[in-house]
């Protein structure tokens, strides 16, 4: 401190000013920030701790409340007679062996084991000493040393040691025995054997008691819904002991770390926890435990399906990935099935994924794939291209081989060297054989090409025939706004200028084929209506406008078809949709077949239906003059418009057969970087309103495809082209779900569902089924509602309910694959008598003939077989021939009053078949599988719910089934299984036998 002078002075601010307060305040702040940092680290950044504390509290309360209920239920079961009986038996069994068990336990525990332990200890000392010396021998180089060591071992083996062995009688007394190594070894091994023998004796004695205990516990677990009291106590104990901390699943191979269960603690609890059971929905258990059972979270994690940021535990927003910078935000509940698509991308039907399935089906049945490629959709056209490429390659390889062969032969002829010339000949021979193989391969490919050409189908109808098919003036009106004419039509609304409408109409009109149609007189409209409503047209087509609409939505609503379609064309189309006007541009064998199947109607019937449909029209509206459609200049301008709007994506148009798709490939649209989705002028709005995401983009785009054009200053042709499908909210959501799941997955193969076994057949089959709308008539999956089931006639009248097309839940188990293939190829099962159903002629609805290729027939057959786990290839079961006596019994059973089979089953006699509601027995042997038939006889209702076939025809008698009704005379003496006898009888029925039966009746 400098000395202060006496003079008047000012205090020196540097030396005199105290900074204690500043220092104190800043130190306090610093310390405070340190405390804050610790608190932040321990509490704020670990919000799951709070969740876990709450979960423990609420869940134990929940379990404690649950316990008495479950305990009461358990008690109730314990009090049941059956349980009591088994318990008593168990107790008796245990009582019977109790003394024996006690004796065995005593001998083992007190006698053998103490002696064994003592012997083992002594034995092990010597053995380790010997083992150590052996090792020294093994590593020693010196022969002398080795023999010394061997001597030492021999000395140990001969050494006599005193061992204190407790007596084996369990008295607890100890004897001292002098033993060598060998004695000890013998003693030790002997005791081990003795112990094993005692133990197995114990197990044998308890066998009966254990069986009864299993039975008793089985009874309990079978009857008790939910957990038992002991299990609940176990859960409570676990809960008390469980430490607070991060709960995570770590999958090494995909580098996935999911800590979701740090907060979602109830997800995998064995008790079902509802949304509000523990106050907060976060604690509810997984709503679909079945799904979790297939996708074990320990193997799949959570975020692999749900998306979100599995590592983040700081906040809900971060964990769910609802964050600008997290590229895989968690799917919203309405789109949760998008997660399935990531791995189930090869399927069109995923069981349980109803929204996703709807989305895929819409993609298929709204024709999205006409413009937008999506892997799997319209795969046939790509395969066709590939096959043709392969054929070209093979042909050129063949030509090259042929050339080389000729050269080799020449060289062989001219070569002076014998050995060399033989080499050349051998080479020529090899090439000749190679070419033979190539020929075979080419033939296979050609078959494949024909198959594929038959399968490739554009989405919309062919426009090559509009001159014959449609009313000229109607065409521009339709193109302008299809939904005006036919609301909900699959043809979407394009934003066309009037001149474009005229140009396109003119182009299509002038490029359509010219041809002749057979002239038909009109038929009976009333009969036509009946046929239309019952033959099966309404499985796909609907009729009636607005609220009156009934029938399927797969194909067009025909309410106003009379205004547009030419009658003669309609007759031809209904009679045989594959009949077309010859098209010089396409060879007949490569001609695409329509999706509409052949209903195998007579011309007269077709005429009746066409007459009925022609009457389906509003009061004739005058269409404006369309003479511009004949103006060649218009047509020329139209070509550009047709190309621009991609009409040929969905329609066959003359001159545009090879036209490609105009839209973007959507296979991986869900993982496209967000920046590449053009929100245009809506970007800022989307960011502010929180829909700047894939979901937001898809939803807005689907709702209004021109949305992102709004406000843009653009030429007409530069505007967005995607037409408006006027989709409903649920359809938009389904398609959004599908597109969100359409991602380039990073999961390795074992995570993706791409089976190569029978399940692949199931996947492949669904594609054909969806494309051909088999579910419009048949129920193929439980819960699937066919179009028929929505038609009032079938829902209201029980007689008509029996007319529903058959359910196909277990078709693969029911029928033989070869028969199924031939049935699908020709459901009439006859080449001559085609105007009928081959199996169920009593149905008004007709199984139509689809234009399936052989490949598709094989796929469909394999689909049904695979779904019912049928072995491939199918081996026909051997069937024991009927003896004369058996035949007679079978005949009696068949015609007994209690089982009047022929009352319902067809016989082929028209007068009798009027009331038939079941197939003819004559085709059973060829069609059915005996094993299935046997089960069907016993329990038809569990195979086809709601079937008219009566159940409980048989009852159990010992180890055989006997007829439940009054048993006919001869059958009483028959000692075999009646159901089996009937099956065999049925399979060996011929028309003579059938006639005899009819006579008997």
């Amino acid at each position, binding site marked *: 401190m*400098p000395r*202060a*002078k006496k*003079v*008047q*002075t*000012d*205090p*020196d601010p*540097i*030396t005199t000013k105290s*900074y204690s307060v*500043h*220092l104190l305040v*800043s*130190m306090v*702040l*610093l310390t405070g*920030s*340190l405390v*804050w*940092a610790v608190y*932040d680290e321990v509490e704020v950044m670990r919000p799951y701790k709070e969740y876990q504390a709450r979960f423990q509290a609420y869940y134990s309360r929940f379990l404690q409340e649950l316990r008495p209920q479950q305990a009461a239920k358990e008690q109730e079961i314990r009090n049941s007679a059956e349980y009591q009986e088994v318990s008593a038996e168990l107790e008796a069994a245990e009582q019977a062996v109790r003394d024996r068990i006690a004796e065995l336990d005593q001998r083992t525990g007190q006698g053998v084991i103490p002696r064994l332990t003592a012997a083992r200890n002594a034995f092990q000392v010597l053995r380790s000493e010997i083992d150590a010396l052996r090792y020294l021998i093994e590593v020693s180089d010196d022969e002398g040393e080795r023999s010394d060591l061997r001597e030492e071992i021999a000395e140990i083996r001969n050494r006599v040691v005193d061992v204190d062995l407790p007596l084996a009688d369990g008295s607890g007394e100890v004897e001292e025995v002098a033993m060598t190594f060998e004695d000890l070894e013998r003693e030790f091994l002997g005791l081990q054997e003795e112990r094993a023998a005692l133990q197995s004796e114990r197990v044998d004695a308890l066998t009966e008691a254990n069986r009864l205990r299993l039975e008793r516990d089985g009874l309990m677990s079978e009857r008790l819904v939910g957990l038992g009291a002991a299990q609940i106590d176990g859960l409570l104990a676990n809960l008390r002991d469980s430490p607070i901390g991060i709960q995570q699943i770590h999958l090494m191979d995909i580098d996935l770390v999911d800590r979701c269960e740090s907060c979602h603690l109830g997800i995998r609890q064995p008790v079902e926890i509802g949304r509000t059971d523990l106050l907060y929905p976060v604690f509810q258990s997984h709503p679909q435990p079945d799904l979790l059972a297939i996708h074990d979270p320990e193997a799949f994690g959570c975020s692999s399906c749900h998306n979100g940021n599995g590592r983040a535990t700081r906040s809900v927003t971060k964990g769910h990935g609802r964050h600008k*910078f*997290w*590229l895989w935000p968690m799917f919203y509940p309405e789109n949760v099935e998008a997660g399935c698509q990531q791995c189930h991308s090869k399927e069109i039907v995923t069981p349980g994924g109803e929204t996703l399935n709807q989305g895929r089906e819409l993609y298929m049945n709204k024709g999205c794939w006409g413009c937008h490629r999506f892997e799997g959709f319209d795969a046939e056209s790509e395969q066709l291209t590939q096959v043709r490429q392969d054929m070209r390659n093979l042909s050129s390889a063949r030509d090259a081989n042929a050339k080389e062969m000729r050269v080799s032969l020449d060289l062989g002829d001219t070569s002076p060297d014998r050995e060399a010339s033989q080499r050349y000949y051998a080479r020529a021979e090899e090439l000749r054989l190679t070419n033979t193989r190539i020929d075979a391969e080419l033939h296979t490919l050609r078959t494949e090409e024909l198959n594929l050409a038959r399968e490739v189908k554009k989405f919309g109808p062919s426009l090559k025939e509009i001159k014959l098919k449609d009313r000229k003036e109607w065409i521009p009106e339709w193109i302008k706004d299809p939904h005006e004419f036919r609301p909900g039509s699959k043809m979407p609304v394009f934003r066309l200028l009037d001149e474009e409408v005229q140009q396109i109409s003119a182009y299509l009109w002038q490029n359509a084929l010219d041809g002749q149609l057979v002239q038909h007189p009109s038929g009976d409209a009333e009969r036509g209506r009946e046929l239309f409503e019952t033959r099966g047209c309404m499985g796909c087509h609907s009729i009636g406008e607005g609220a009156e609409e009934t029938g399927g939505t797969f194909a067009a609503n025909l309410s106003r078809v009379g205004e547009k379609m030419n009658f003669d064309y309609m007759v031809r189309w209904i009679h045989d949709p594959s009949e077309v006007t010859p098209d010089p541009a396409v060879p007949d064998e490569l001609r695409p077949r329509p999706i509409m199947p052949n209903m195998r109607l007579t011309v007269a019937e077709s005429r009746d239906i066409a007459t009925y449909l022609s009457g389906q029209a509003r009061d004739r509206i005058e269409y404006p003059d369309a003479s511009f459609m004949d103006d060649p200049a218009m047509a020329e301008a139209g070509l550009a418009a047709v190309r621009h709007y991609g009409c040929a994506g969905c329609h066959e148009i003359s001159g545009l057969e090879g036209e490609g798709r105009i839209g973007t490939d959507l296979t991986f649209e869900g993982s496209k*970087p967000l*920046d*590449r989705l053009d929100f*245009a*002028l809506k*970007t*800022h709005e989307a960011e*502010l309103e929180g829909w700047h995401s894939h979901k937001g983009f898809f939803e807005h785009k689907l709702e209004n495809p021109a949305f992102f054009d709004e406000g843009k200053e653009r030429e007409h042709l530069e505007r967005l082209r995607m037409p408006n499908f006027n989709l409903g909210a649920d359809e938009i959501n389904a398609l959004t779900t599908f597109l969100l799941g359409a991602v380039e997955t990073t999961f390795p193969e074992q995570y993706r569902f791409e089976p190569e076994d029978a399940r692949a057949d199931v996947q492949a089959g669904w594609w054909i089924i969806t494309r051909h709308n088999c579910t419009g008539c048949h129920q193929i999956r439980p819960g699937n509602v066919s179009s028929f089931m929505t038609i009032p006639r079938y829902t209201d009248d029980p007689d008509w309910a029996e007319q529903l097309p058959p359910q196909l839940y277990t078709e693969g188990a029911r029928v033989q694959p070869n028969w199924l293939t031939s049935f699908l190829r020709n459901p009439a099962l006859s080449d001559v008598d085609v105007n009928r159903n081959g199996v169920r002629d009593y149905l008004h609805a007709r199984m139509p003939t689809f234009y399936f290729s052989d490949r598709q027939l094989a796929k469909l057959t394999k689909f049904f077989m695979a779904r019912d786990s049928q072995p491939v290839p199918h081996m026909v079961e051997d069937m024991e021939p009927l003896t004369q006596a058996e035949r007679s019994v079978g005949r009696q059973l068949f015609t007994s009053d209690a089982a009047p089979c022929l009352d319902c089953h067809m016989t082929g006699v028209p007068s009798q078949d009027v009331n038939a509601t079941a197939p003819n027995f004559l085709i059973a042997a060829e069609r059915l599988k005996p094993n299935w038939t046997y089960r069907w006889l016993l329990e038809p209702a569990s195979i086809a719910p709601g079937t008219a076939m009566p159940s409980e025809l048989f009852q159990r008698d010992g180890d055989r089934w006997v007829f439940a009704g009054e048993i006919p005379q001869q059958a009483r003496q028959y000692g075999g299984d009646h159901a089996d006898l009937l099956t065999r009888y049925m399979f060996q029925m011929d028309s003579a036998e059938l006639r005899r039966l009819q006579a008997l009746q």
Partner: protein
Amino acid sequence: MDWHQLWTIVSLPDNIPIVGMLFIIPFFTWYGLRQAFANDRLIQELDADKKLARTHHRKAHPFKKGWAREVSVWPYLLRMEFLAAVIVTFILMVWSITLDAPLEEPANPSLTMNPSKAPWYFLGLQEMLVYFDPWIAGVVMPTLIIVGLIAIPYIDENPLGNGYYTYKQRRFAIWTFIFGFIILWCSMIVIGTLIRGPGWMWFWPGMTWDHNRLIFEINRDLHEIIGITSQPWIGIFGGLVVGGFVAVSGYACHRIITATEFSRNILARMSLLQYAILQTLLIIMLALPVKIAARLLFRIKYVWVTPWFNV
């Protein structure tokens, strides 16, 4: 005025240092200059009063009676530094607790973000790329900045102003610093952070960063404007223009260097090499604002186009 956009930009954790810089740099410049002016007054006083200068060890202005003639580093300086360290640590603690690291989505090599910005301390360099050939802006200029900073002690022949704030004795150095660092470097960082939006377009604060924004801007080389179309005339023309700039700005710098008696004395102490280096660095530094002005006001892309480099 899009307040939301403005807030989005200034609240980005990445941009916090820049927003802080907007206030801190003017403050410390003012604070330093205030002390420098105070010291200048003291120097004036001491120059006038030789007696006072002899006894006046502690250079404080105005010096009051009773004040210590000298103060020790310990404890008087160190306690202040300690206090400052505590406060800075406190600020850093709070900062690190409240603001997370500005991490974004995982890098995607096939996708460039827009705008794609360098870390804040490199934004000045990135901004230079707008005005110069990448070779000049990315390699030559940064190298010269570092070389120039290293060279300062060797070309600075002014013996005064060490260890205390002064304006009068280091007028040239202070103005060079203010021009080179605060005006050029810092403002380019601020432009890069707050002004440059999608497409590296110029968005005034408060304008919406619209990814769809299109502006009509055609930058042309100077020779195109003049109408010279072929080499070597293009190169010769550009060389003449750049040579002219060097001559004019060299002359202007020389006028500044020799503006006062004081600076002429300093110049007299310098060797020719020192002077040449100083001139080179000054001319290149001056070229930056000239080029910025040429680009922003006259849409001139390059002045000197040669097959090897463009200026």
